[in-house]
């Protein structure tokens, strides 16, 4: 079963609460979680994904600099040979309250497979990832 994920909060972001909760919730749901915590660079995400042979990278960004911090992550994954790795991003990923559709479009254009808005509960993330990783329906 594909269940290995790398989790972390990108950039200079220190919002630790959601990360700790996601770690707990994904582990509880049967995933093998490599949690990098907060203030994680793109390079650290990629290294960890290679090392753990991950199926997905889950990037959190809360503090507003998500757009700057995420630029180029997909390209770097490609270069590192993580060809079709799933990339999710979630949290408060832009500065301010912006229409979610536009934000989603911008991040999808950057190469993210799924984009989650503020306050998405873990159930939703978990269901989505199970689907994308072709877990059998319960």
């Amino acid at each position: 079963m594909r269940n290995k994920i790398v989790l972390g909060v990108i950039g200079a972001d220190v919002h630790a609460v959601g990360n700790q909760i996601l770690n707990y919730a994904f582990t509880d749901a049967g995933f093998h979680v490599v949690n990098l915590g907060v203030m994680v660079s793109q390079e650290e995400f990629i290294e960890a994904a290679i090392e753990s042979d991950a199926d997905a990278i889950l990037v959190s960004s809360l503090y507003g600099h998500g757009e700057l911090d995420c630029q180029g992550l997909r390209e770097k994954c490609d270069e590192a040979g993580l060809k079709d790795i799933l990339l999710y991003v979630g949290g408060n990923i832009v500065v301010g309250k912006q229409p979610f559709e536009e934000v989603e479009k911008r991040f999808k254009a950057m190469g993210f497979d799924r984009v989650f808005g503020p306050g998405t509960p873990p159930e939703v993330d978990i269901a989505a990832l199970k689907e994308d990783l072709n877990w059998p329906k319960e």
Partner: protein
Amino acid sequence: MQLTNKKWDLDFFMNQRQEVLKAWPTGAEVDLDEALAYQAEIPKEKRFVSKLNEALRDGKTLIQPRAGVPLINEHIVLLSHLEQEGEADLLPTTIDSYTRLNRYQDAQRGIEESKTSGKAMLNGFPAVNHGVKGCRMVTSALKKPVQVRHGTPDARLLAEITLAGGFTSFEGGGISYNIPYAKNAPLQDTLFFWQYCDRLVGYYEDKGISINREPFGPLTGTLVPPCVSNAVAIIEALLAAEQGVKNITVGYGQCGNLIQDVAAIRALKQQTMEYLDRFGYKDMEVSTVLHQWMGGFPADEAKAFAVICWGSAVAALANATKVIVKTPHEALGVPTKEANAAGLRATKQVIMMLADQAIADGERLEHEMAVIREETDCILERTLELGEGDLAMGVVAAFEAGVIDVPFAPSRYNAGKIMPARDNEGAVRFLNAGRLPLNQKLLDFHKKKIQERADAEHRGVSFQMVIDDVYAISKGRLVGRPH
């Protein structure tokens, strides 16, 4: 050099300054004598210290937003809006996250991209990049006093530039701007950096320019038990006083239970004064700040207003000297200026309706205060012991030993052993007190309180309670009850 809690001698300080000012080109703009002269011209009604002292005297609660955008003119428009449409008594300048990590190059990129895209690409005002002149453009454009609010482990250059830039208050501290805001910053270092900041304020103070200092009370903002944040605030007040700071605002993040919150603010004020006195710091001016709920907010704006208003009520009933105001956009992102002003106006209305009222005193309040005071004493005494009398060294050792421990903190220098949860009335207690040096009586009290809740909820005591409590307010209640 060895960290000790001793006032820096002037030469040492001046030497350090030479290094610090080199970290970014705008450092060269700082000329201390000229800065003193500039500050001396700022009229009383635009100074933090006088506004706070006035409020203390009259028993008033002032209101202050958080706000910062990347570009100077937009930032002035924003703050002007908040003082006019928001009726703010005190103004902030919230610094962006790159500056907070001394990544001035990235901040520069944020400034440029904000200019070209027409969107704010930074989550605050990059004061270092804008330099002394940029700061003065801001502080001189406004009628109300302006404070620097940030979350910067190493804020030395920021302090130099902003104080020379006409700001009259500076938030932060070596613990409170490290543990919740950094992952890898050793406490030795940040305590040292903040001795610098305090010494700088002390220098201004020595020259007759009084600058307000405010340790960041709420820490991680999420279920922080009052004794933990009060202990940190008192320590930072003591460390600041040693370097010559005279005017201090100690802070506390609303937990949500009225009695606990009022008790915490009162205990904080009392104990800060007592400890300052015990260590011989004279002529100190101590005010208090309550932060409206600092954890996850409800996304719905009406519900966000409710959280804001309840925080305002607590601030008024606790007679805090000021209250830091959230906005109806809190859960979603950096607020528009209109949303920010709306949060302020709601707060002002509550504060004014409660201005002349006090909470009914009584046994429960007395008891809650006694508990907080005793817990705080336990932590502080053990910290002093660990430092063998030196408070700065004691802090480093205390964090290492888990004697001070902040829940949900990102820092690797924080033990992360305690687990807070609400009791059946919503007061924050210890589900697990980790290695905090609380005595058995206190531990039993917490255990009893958590058990009461478990019984009421017909479930065992477990980590699920903590998770439920983390989400509770954003889901519309205080205590995270099952189903």
